[in-house]
């Protein structure tokens, strides 16, 4: 092929004909922008959620490093730090075994030296003041300072009681800086300076391997080049430097990968991937439907122009280039608009997702990652190019002679004959008009139906979220009060038990009906003999028995136990010879029967450490036998300590109390008269805010609130997407109607000249629009039903809190609006084009 310098001519042609198509350009830009909005929203939502979850887990883990080497010495640190795989490494050295100030009884604090990298990885760079420099300077988080009563000002004095290898040493420091405590990280941190470390080097020798003392040990957080195969890289770093990953080897280095990075796998599991892929395909398809239609129509309109170009010697390739260039110009305008709008849409939706995840307390972070924009822009561009490919080919393939006769409608007539005689009736004629370009009609109808089906799906999902299922998982009685730690899955025993004072106050409230305490806790842990269990390799005590959670229930919770098999005989239980074994439920509320350890009637031997000694070893190991009377459901959120033990047993409170030294009230469940529920809710709210802030509660009310916010999330996100897709559908419809009216102006003039009144013409157009929407209704109803029954139903089966309900009302509600729109749009479009006189329009053709 001869290379010719024709770029300029082609560009000129493309730009000129681009400018001549103002209304098409406007609609095309809107379509491209909306498509990009969809892509960007999807990407932002996806990335934002993963990012927020990762951030939250990192903060819980206390570091953003990929991996950590624990309890190592200076020598070991020096050995590994230059390894080529390591991008950054933090030097964090523990300066005491513990901080013994009594302010830290409830919330532990640790005394460290962190280097700059460590501060960065640990999210604890001081936000006020400066990093510690002098030997007596420290920085700390605000909550720690608050507990100590230290004012937030540089230079404020504070005293730490340090436990160094069992020895208590008091040292005075001054405050150099501080940062805001992270609510998800529940340990206080105090950092000293490098000079402190250097001066006290003697007492900081690492003796961890000899006496498990933490003073002076180094935790080295490592950042690799990327987060792929962290386990492998960590192993390589350790073994390359002559250390071992074998726990029993003398040169073993304790290590682990940061679990927040393990959870990045969350972002890439099969389900998420498929969902993402489906989302992308749906958007590409939506975009294709409209952009293809716009270009198809525009090419048809200009087909004579392309024929003319062909006649004077433009090649097909050049014509295709003209069309591609126009598509690119439109993309250059539409895509950036869409990127910006989409990012903000996505960003505003991420908190909704996060609120319903287990990371609700965490701050939401969505950074405008270039990946989002590049990805969305790329996808949008690909969609545009795919969509313009076929129209470009049509324009390129047009024969110069035919182009002159090529008008909308007589493109390809498959049927030569049409056996009817009543075609002149308006409804019939309108129908025939839609058949002129079947492909366009079908695309518009699909485009409109798509959003309707999506809308219906969204509402089906949100309506199928089963309130009873949801509530029964989280609440058993109207209210449950307990120490705040309990709700953080951190109930231990007497130290954070439910306060008797709060129980008294609650019982005195109006409307209080009945309540009961639940006892438990791991402070006085139980153990169960079980010779049959040979597979479980953890939670075994030194006697070879399995750790077990035993709960003592007062009447209300005891009577509310859900029996699975056996009998629930309260009189027998009260004798102290019988026990109920708890069985865990899966997400769908089905008992996991294979987790049962003892059959009904079998004898179970329970031990516990009875005594007051600090260590378990110093206590008496008691033994007591029970006969398993039956199995009951362990309800994670109402009758367990939320830790998920392998062995669970339930006893009446009176029996339980005889078995432990210090019975700890895990929680208190109670019911309230229906008309007093709201008042009780308000009371508990203010009581836990002001009177006993360490106590907390859950209720049907709070669960209901969570329930409706879950529902809202589904509706908001799905609604936003179906709104945009709906907008695209309507845009497509407007474009199709508008161009069909414009291209038929001359035909309308002719019809008017042979006696069609304006009223009749309007009626015909109304029917055309009506048929579009009618077809959309039928398609949406049929497809919506099929989709709902086949796909949504099986999807609902995957989610425990959803029980599928077939609904069509969202569709039925929208349909009348669509019908009105379908009739109005042609009328408005016609009114806009009906400005020229018949004669002018007739002449146009000549």
């Amino acid at each position, binding site marked *: 092929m001869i290379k010719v310098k024709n770029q300029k001519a082609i560009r000129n042609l493309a730009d000129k004909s681009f400018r001549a198509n103002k209304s098409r350009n406007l609609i095309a830009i809107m379509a491209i922008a909306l498509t990009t909005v969809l892509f960007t929203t999807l990407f932002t939502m996806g990335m934002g959620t993963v990012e927020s979850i990762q951030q939250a887990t990192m903060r819980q883990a206390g570091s953003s490093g990929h991996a950590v080497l624990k309890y190592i010495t200076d020598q070991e640190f020096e050995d590994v730090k230059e390894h080529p795989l390591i991008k950054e490494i933090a030097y964090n050295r523990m300066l005491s075994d513990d901080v013994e100030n009594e302010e830290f009884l409830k919330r532990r604090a640790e005394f460290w030296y962190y280097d700059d990298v460590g501060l960065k990885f640990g999210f604890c760079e001081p936000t006020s003041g400066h990093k510690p420099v002098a030997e007596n300077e420290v920085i700390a988080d605000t909550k720690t300072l608050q507990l100590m009563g230290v004012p937030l000002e540089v230079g404020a004095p504070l005293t730490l009681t340090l436990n160094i290898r069992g020895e208590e040493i008091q040292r005075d420091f001054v405050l150099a800086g501080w940062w805001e405590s992270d609510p998800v990280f529940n340990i206080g941190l105090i950092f000293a300076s490098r000079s402190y470390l250097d001066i006290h080097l003697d007492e900081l020798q690492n003796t961890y391997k000899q006496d498990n003392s933490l003073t002076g040990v180094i935790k080295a957080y490592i950042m690799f080049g990327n987060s792929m195969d962290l386990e492998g890289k960590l192993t390589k770093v350790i073994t390359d430097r002559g250390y071992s990953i074998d726990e029993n080897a003398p040169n073993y280095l304790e290590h682990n990968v940061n679990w927040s990075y393990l959870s990045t796998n969350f972002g890439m599991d099969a389900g998420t991937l498929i969902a993402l892929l489906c989302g992308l395909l749906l958007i590409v398809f939506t975009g294709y439907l409209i952009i293809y239609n716009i270009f198809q129509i525009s090419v048809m309109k200009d087909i004579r122009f392309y024929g003319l170009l062909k006649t004077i010697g433009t090649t097909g390739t050049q014509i295709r280039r003209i069309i591609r260039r126009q598509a690119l110009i439109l993309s250059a305008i539409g895509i950036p608009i869409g990127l910006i709008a989409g990012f903000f849409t996505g960003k505003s939706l991420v908190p909704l997702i996060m609120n319903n995840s287990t990371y609700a307390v965490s701050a939401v972070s969505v950074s405008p990652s270039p990946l989002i924009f590049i990805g969305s822009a790329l996808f949008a561009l690909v969609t545009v190019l795919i969509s313009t490919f076929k129209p470009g080919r049509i324009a390129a393939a047009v024969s110069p002679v035919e182009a002159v006769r090529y008008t909308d409608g*007589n493109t390809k*007539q498959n049927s030569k*004959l049409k056996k009817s005689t009543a*075609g*002149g009736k308006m409804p019939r004629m309108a129908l025939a008009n839609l058949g002129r370009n079947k492909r366009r009609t079908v695309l518009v109808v699909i485009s409109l139906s798509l959003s309707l089906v999506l809308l219906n799906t969204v509402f089906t999902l949100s309506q199928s979220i089963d309130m009873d299922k949801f509530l029964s998982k989280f609440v058993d009685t109207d209210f449950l009060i307990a120490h705040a730690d309990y709700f953080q899955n951190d109930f231990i025993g007497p130290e954070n038990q439910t306060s008797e004072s709060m129980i008294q106050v609650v019982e005195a409230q109006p409307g209080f009906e009945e309540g009961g305490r639940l006892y438990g806790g791991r402070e006085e842990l139980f153990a169960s003999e079980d010779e049959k269990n040979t597979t479980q390799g953890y939670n075994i005590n030194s006697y070879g028995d399995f750790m077990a959670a035993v709960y003592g229930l007062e009447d209300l919770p005891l009577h509310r136990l859900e029996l699975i098999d056996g009998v629930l005989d309260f009189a027998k239980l009260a004798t102290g010879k019988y026990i109920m074994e708890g069985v865990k439920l899966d997400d769908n509320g089905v008992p996991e029967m294979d987790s049962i350890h003892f059959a009904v009637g079998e004898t179970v031997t329970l031990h516990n450490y009875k005594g007051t000694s600090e260590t378990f070893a110093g206590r008496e190991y008691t033994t007591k036998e029970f006969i398993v009377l039956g199995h009951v459901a362990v309800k994670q959120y109402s009758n367990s300590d939320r830790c998920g033990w392998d062995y669970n047993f339930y006893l009446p409170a009176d029996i339980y109390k005889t078995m432990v030294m210090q019975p700890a009230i895990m929680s208190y469940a109670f019911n309230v008269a229906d008309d007093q529920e709201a008042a009780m809710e308000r009371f508990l709210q203010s009581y836990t805010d002001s009177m006993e802030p360490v106590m907390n509660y859950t209720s049907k009310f709070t669960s209901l609130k969570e329930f409706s916010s879950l529902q809202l999330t589904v509706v908001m996100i799905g609604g936003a997407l179906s709104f945009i897709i709906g907008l695209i559908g309507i845009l497509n419809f407007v474009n199709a109607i508008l161009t069909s009216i414009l291209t038929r102006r001359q035909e309308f003039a002719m019809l008017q000249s042979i*006696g069609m009144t304006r*009223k009749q013409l309007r009626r015909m157009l109304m029917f055309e629009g009506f048929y579009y929407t009618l077809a959309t209704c039928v398609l949406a109803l049929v497809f919506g039903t099929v989709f709902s029954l086949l796909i949504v139903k099986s999807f609902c089966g995957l989610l425990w809190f959803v029980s599928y309900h077939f609904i069509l009302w969202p569709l039925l509600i929208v349909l009348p609006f669509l019908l009105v729109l379908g009739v109005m749009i042609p009328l408005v479009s016609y009114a806009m084009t009906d400005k020229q006189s018949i004669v002018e329009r007739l002449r146009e053709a*000549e």
Partner: protein
Amino acid sequence: MTILETTNLKKYYGSGDTTVKALDGVDFTVENGEFVAIVGTSGSGKSTLLHMLGGLDRPSSGTVSVDGKQIFLLKDEELTIFRRRKIGFVFQNYNLVPVLNVYENIVLPIQLDGNEPDTEYLNQIIKTLGLESKVHNLPNNLSGGQQQRVAIARALAAKPAIILADEPTGNLDSKTSQDVLGLLKVTSEKFSQTIVMITHNEEIAQLADRIIRLEDGKIVGGEGQ
């Protein structure tokens, strides 16, 4: 009986110096059953005149009476209805509705009026125009001559007071033109239909009963009667 009468018909476009006098005082009458040809070069105003006669456009001044009715006293919608009852059009480019078959195109003006077509009369027209085998065809499967015959049939179908033909053979070759014109003349005689045809072709004009010559918006020859 006079079926069509114009008095001092004027149509000016623009104003002041740039005024174009498309029609500048045209007076003529057409008798019932007559076949009149209006000839003139391009720009002589003949198309404008035809549009005025058909009520497609309104004149600057003057009147047009069809079947004794002054058409410009009617409102737009009334005029349209009047048109489909009293006037049949035959256009140069046929102007058939592409989505309707031949039969539907022919009866369209009748159906627009909400009437049932007179089947016997229609069959007669279709037969005369030789379209029997084509009634179920769609327009774009017909040749130009066939399409124009359909257009003539459509114009005749509603039994209008007058048929206005605008260069009916303009897009046809000479052989086909002869055929179509022959049919036009035959049908006009057979159904005693008044026809006003505009053309720039003298030869074709010769087929008419009477020729009116138009130049610069004025009648310059022929018998204005």
